[in-house]
């Protein structure tokens, strides 16, 4: 019985906001029975030394990710668009503040 149940706790991904004004950043994952327990475990596991002021937990199987196999389809098109960058444009040094 216990053999069956013990691995049923789902996996959660944990994101921590280090301080106000910063994004939540992925810090790792953990197992918990539900979201509430995941938050408590995340507090114990990832913020023992004032690492954060806010935590998100997300079930890992709710995350949709682009895979390495679609890397080119997703990201290659931006490689040949140098004109999206400010350094693409040459402006004389004599022109100030630009």
């Amino acid at each position, binding site marked *: *019985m*216990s053999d069956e*149940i*013990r*691995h*049923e*706790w789902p*996996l959660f991904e944990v994101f921590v906001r280090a301080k106000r004004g910063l994004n939540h950043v992925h*810090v*790792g*994952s*953990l*197992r918990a*029975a*539900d*979201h*509430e*327990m995941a938050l408590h475990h995340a507090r*114990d*596991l990832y913020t*023992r*030394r004032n690492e954060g002021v*806010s935590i*998100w937990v997300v079930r890992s199987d709710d995350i949709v*990710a682009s*895979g*390495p*196999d679609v890397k080119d389809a997703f990201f290659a098109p931006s490689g040949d668009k140098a004109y999206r960058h400010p350094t693409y444009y040459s402006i004389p040094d004599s022109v100030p503040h630009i």
Partner: protein
Amino acid sequence: MATDGAAVFAETIEKDQRVEPRDWMPDGYRKTMVRQIAQHAHSEIIGMQPEGEWITRAPSLRRKAILLAKVQDEAGHGLYLYAAAETLGADRGDLTRRLIEGRQKYSSIFNYPTLTFGDVGVIGWLVDGAAICNQVPLCRSSYGPYARAMIRICKEESFHQRQGYELLMTMMRGTPAQRDMVQNAVNRWWWPSLMMFGPPDADSPNSAQSMAWKIKRHGNDELRQRFVDMTVPQAEALGVTLPDPRLRWNAEREQHDFGDPDWAEFKRVVAGDGPMNKARIAHRRRADEEGAWVREAAAAHAARRREAGPSPSGGRS
């Protein structure tokens, strides 16, 4: 796909970039990574026992609080590492079962007993010191989740070593009996600490492949030498003797010469015949069995809540 994947993998390693969970990787790499990370995680979890035994016996509230925090860190380190192993398709519960059934190993250092409170200090100083030597290079290990877990662990490990050394300094300022206690603990932990770096490179069959895959960055002997060179001045400052008659400075090499650990003992302890192997596993098995009802109850509670509808406490903050 496999050939493309193999080329990408080779290039990633070559360029010193990190391999991430969904990348193609050779089966051998995946297996080696799971084995190493699991063994490391098990070491952290089993490593809670030798010091955990001293939490209630620590001589002051301050020492109890410090030791409690340290042992809690070991639990945390184990969990970071199990999470890293799970990114490779391993299952935490399955890994625990493999540990309990003796199918996966943990560091042989934890199969020695902690006889006095002096041992608690020496474990922090020598055992965690050796662990830091081993672990700092792993922060650049080629597998991303492992390297990231190691960065987190290394940040916390420094407190472990310093609290141990401070504890020993305090005891060395005490009575002759307290100083003897420290020296006695050093005598017992020195050689097992040197064994933590693994067998000599010539007898370490997996090392070459792990170096090629950039899982490991340094040989066992190189790290062992580094540890000895770091530790000798610390021992002098503390006023203890390291129990090795062959230990001396070699001006030519600009490193210390030192004796060989008893590798026959190392093999015996790794094979399961150390002083505490059976007790450590029995303790872990008991904790697993006695915690089963809690895990089951939590799962049942969560299932009932799911049936009752969505939680009201959603939303981003």
